[in-house]
């Protein structure tokens, strides 16, 4: 089962929860699906924030820059989202959902930024050339880069969440405000557009 951490992630979910409970007095661990809700208090201080949400900032930034395609705007969005998340930490019911919950706040902040500025940047990076340069593969990868650039931002975000940040369909749905089924359908629909004729098997991810 995916733990929802990207390829650079180094924290297991277990260690993350332990770190969370030691940083936040009064937090009762949820034991998994169906466990009772746990309340979280929101102490002040940069060090407390860093111990609770700090590990998520990088993933938030990766998501923000994917949605906004602007470094400064993404940094602003992450900071705004972090402030909101810290203020609303008491609303979080499951410590295990912290990553998805935080990313959903980042995503909404990015949408707000996008609406406020109404810009989108579409650039395509030339493929890297090196020994054994495969022109066909380069053309195909450039095609994929271009195709990703042309996607609706929400579609591109869904792909990024699932295939780069390794979120399950259910987690993708939570970040995007969709049901698991809707998130999976969206991803499969986009894949079908990227690669017509691609056979897609029903993955057993329940989140």
């Amino acid at each position, binding site marked *: 089962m995916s733990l929802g951490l990207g390829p650079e992630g180094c924290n297991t979910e277990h260690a993350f929860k332990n770190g969370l409970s030691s940083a936040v007095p009064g937090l009762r661990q949820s034991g998994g699906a169906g466990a009772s809700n746990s309340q979280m208090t929101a102490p002040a201080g940069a060090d407390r924030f860093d111990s609770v949400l700090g590990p998520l900032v*990088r993933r938030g*930034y990766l998501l923000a*820059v994917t949605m906004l395609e602007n470094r400064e705007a993404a940094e602003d969005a992450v900071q705004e989202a972090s402030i*909101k998340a810290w203020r609303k930490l008491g609303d979080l019911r499951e410590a295990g959902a912290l990553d998805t919950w935080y990313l959903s706040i980042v995503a909404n902040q990015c*949408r707000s930024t996008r609406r*406020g500025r109404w*810009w*989108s940047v579409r650039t395509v990076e030339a493929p890297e050339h090196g020994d054994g340069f495969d022109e066909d593969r380069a053309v195909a990868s450039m095609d994929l880069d271009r195709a990703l650039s042309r996607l609706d931002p929400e579609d591109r975000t869904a792909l990024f969440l699932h295939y780069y940040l390794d979120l399950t369909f259910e987690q993708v749905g939570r970040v995007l405000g*969709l049901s698991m089924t809707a998130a999976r359908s969206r991803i499969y629909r986009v894949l079908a557009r990227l690669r017509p004729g*691609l056979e897609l098997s029903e993955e057993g991810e329940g989140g």
Partner: protein
Amino acid sequence: MADLEGELRVSFERRLRRFPEDPDLRKRTAAAVARSVRQPAWLPVAAAVAAVLVVAVVAFALIQSRRHAVTPITSPTPTAGPSSVPSPSPTASLSVAPNPSLPASVPPAARAGFQLAYDGARKAVVLFGGTADGGTTAFSDTWTWDGAWHEQHPAQSPPARRGGMMAYDAVHRVVVLFGGWTPGPQGIGQALADTWTWDGVTWTERHPAASPGARADGAIDYDDALQKVVLSGVDPASNRTETWAWDGRTWALLDQTSWSEFSVPMAYHVPTRQLVAWTIPGGTETFDGERWHAQSAGGPTGTLTTNMDLSRLDAAGMVVMFGGAGSSNTLLDTTWVYDGTTWRGTGGSPSPPARHSGGANGMVYDADLKVVVLFGGEGANGPLADTWTFNGAAWSKVGGNCPSSAPVPVRLPLPHGRPSPATTPAQDATAYHSPDGWSLMVPAGYEVQSPQIPSGLPHTEIVPSAQAGKTDRLPLLVVWTGGSADSAPNQVQLAPPALRTDIDWQNEYSFGPAVGGVTATVSRAPIDLCVLPGAAAGPAAGWPFLLTFTARTAAHTYFFMFLSDTPEAALVQQVMQSISLR
């Protein structure tokens, strides 16, 4: 499938490499969070609060004695789930001023992010600027509405902008405008810090001794208790929301609060004599003249909602909230009213189409008509140009009852076959060379315009010239220019938007070869005659005919669309035969 997954990961890696992360971002974020921790609110002085309440009760009673009886809203506040916008429940009808029955008038071009205020001295809604393309360009025009729209022509105007803040200063009898975004490539502009006033005739730039820093997408309204225009917006330097007041000469800082939000709307609630703000991700704050205070008032909580319109509605003792953008970019068409304690859903049907404000506020209270007036905003298919009024219980579309907007067109006997070519060229025509590569002769009495319509393809209109005394607003010709592989626009937009979306096009016939050897199609356009009065077709004559064709060169594809009262109109033929492509 595994190959594609790997390719996607590599492709995302390439995209992310363009935006390397600052190694200090985590530390800076932690510091920003630490700075944002809310300071304990000052407790209001009990005596001052009691005095304000007494004055409010007396004032409210006096106001009530001059109006219709008000029926309390008794329906329960809708409860919201954690991830959905609750559906407003119907409420008991509130007897307030009736929505006025007003004829249609030609409105400003469709737009969002414009600045709107009610000028109490001149008894007119004032509109300035805004954008129709997400901020890449911006308007700098001034319009007023007194039941009908009128474009103004002041000797001086502020620079074009969107997302500015504008309100009426009742003491000094001028409309005050502050800040906003300049236009910029891809919608990224610069925040402004200028102050302007409108006196009903022209704009005057003010140079106050103190001023907020550059900002946009904030909130503003006149605070009756303070007798000042109050502005609330995020200071980009501190990332805190600052509240400033304008005294007619300068700005003064009243409060700094920890919550920082873009596009937080604000309106004054007369009965409680407080400004009311709806914050993101969802909550009510009230301003007592010194500090903001969080309230538990319900409303569309549980979901992130931004860019909604908010207005006072003094005649009903309410603050009204409409629309906005919810999670997953869904546009909202819900109406909420705040009675000083809680938010309740209302509105009923008809209701304005879903929209968001674009960072500014598209709704104001018309104290003369005693209704809230809503204009434009960003709809599902682009910016809007519709005008609505709300009296506290129901919405009414201005010009919505236009009798000439017939649901079914009159069908005239139609001559089939190829229209006869014009035998004489148009008199007093003027050559026009488009930068997009096409040229033609513009007949006398017509002019060339390139309205700002975000349809994706640049387009140009040949329209009747108002300066030539023509009152018909229907274009003679619309030309789109696309790339060599582009398809015809699947959505036709005119300025102002005048095509009815509830009725399909009616294709009549095709003929060819037309000009340049292409095939042309003749069809009928379902024009909303309430928006374009005096159009080529009237209720008894049927709708205008369209003659459309596509012409391609090596570099471009051109889509031509003529509108006329008959497919054989000589003017159409004359212009069509003058077309040349480079």
